[in-house]
C-alpha cells in the first residue's frame, strides 16, 4: 500500500463515482418518465379479443368485472353502488383520467352497462371496454 500511494502522484485512490452517478441518473429519468400511476383492478380476468382494439395511453382507472358479476377496483372487491363515489373521488383528484372496464368474456352485459352508467354519473365520459388485440 505504502509503495502504491507513493507511486506517480499523491492523488486520491478511491473509485471515481461520476460515471456511476451518470448511469444511475439516466435510469432514474427513465423510470420517472415511464411511471404512470395506474389504479389497478387487482385481479386477472379473461378478456375478449378484438381486431380493432386500440391502445389507449390515458386509460388509467381500471375496473374489472368477473364472470360472476363481482366488481374489482383498486385491488378491492366493491359493490356496484360504491363505484360512483370511488370514481367521483378519483375524478376530482385527477380530472383527465379515463376509465377502462375490463370485463370477463362470460360476464353479463347488464353488469357492464350498470358499471358504465355509474362511471358516467360520476362525471367521467370517456371509457372503453378492454379487449386483447387479436391476431
Amino acid at each position, binding site marked *: 500500500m505504502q509503495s502504491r500511494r507513493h507511486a506517480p502522484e*499523491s*492523488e*486520491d485512490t478511491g473509485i471515481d*463515482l*461520476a460515471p*456511476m*452517478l451518470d448511469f*444511475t*441518473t439516466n*435510469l*432514474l429519468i427513465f*423510470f*420517472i418518465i*415511464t*411511471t*404512470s*400511476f*395506474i389504479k*389497478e383492478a387487482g385481479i386477472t380476468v379473461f378478456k*375478449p*379479443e*378484438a*381486431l*380493432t*382494439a*386500440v*391502445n*389507449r*395511453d390515458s*386509460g388509467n382507472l*381500471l375496473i374489472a*368485472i368477473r364472470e360472476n358479476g363481482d366488481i374489482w377496483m383498486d385491488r378491492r372487491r366493491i359493490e356496484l353502488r360504491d363505484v360512483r363515489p370511488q370514481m367521483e373521488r378519483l375524478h376530482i383528484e385527477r380530472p383527465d383520467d379515463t376509465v*377502462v*372496464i*375490463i*370485463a*370477463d*368474456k*362470460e*360476464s*353479463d*352485459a*347488464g353488469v*357492464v*352497462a350498470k358499471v*358504465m*352508467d355509474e362511471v*358516467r*354519473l360520476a362525471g367521467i365520459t*370517456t*371509457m*372503453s*371496454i*378492454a*379487449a*386483447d*388485440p387479436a391476431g
Partner: protein
Amino acid sequence: MRKRRHASGDQEHTGIDLAPMLDFVTNLLIFFIITAVFVKESGLEVNRPTSFEQPEESDNESIQIQILSDGEIWVDNRAVDVRAVRANVERMSAVNPDSGVLILAQEQAPTGTLVEVVDQVHLGGIYNITFSTTQ
C-alpha cells in the same frame, strides 16, 4: 491549480464529494422502480346513453343489432352469425353512410359476444356505436 493544490494542507483532490448525491439518486431510483407499473390496456370505445334517457331511436337510420342472453345475434329480425355482422353492417352503411349502430343486449348476454359484435361493426366501418341493455 498548482498553487491551490499546494495551498491546502493535504495533497488530496479538491472535487465535490459525489457519494451523498449518489445515495440520494439511488434512493429515488429504487422508489420509482418499485412504484412503476407497466400496464397497457387496449380497448374498444362505445357510447352509452344514461339509463334515464331512452336510447336515441329517433333517427330510423340507425342499424339495430340485438344480442340475446344466450349469445344469439339478431340483425334485421334475422338471427345471424358473428362473422355475418360485418357484412350486414357494410351493406346497411352503404345505403345510409352516416348511420350509427345501436347494440341492444339483454342483461344476461355475455360480454364476449358484445365485444365481438362491436369489433365486427368497427370492421364494417362504423365507429358510432351506442350500447344499451334490455330486460
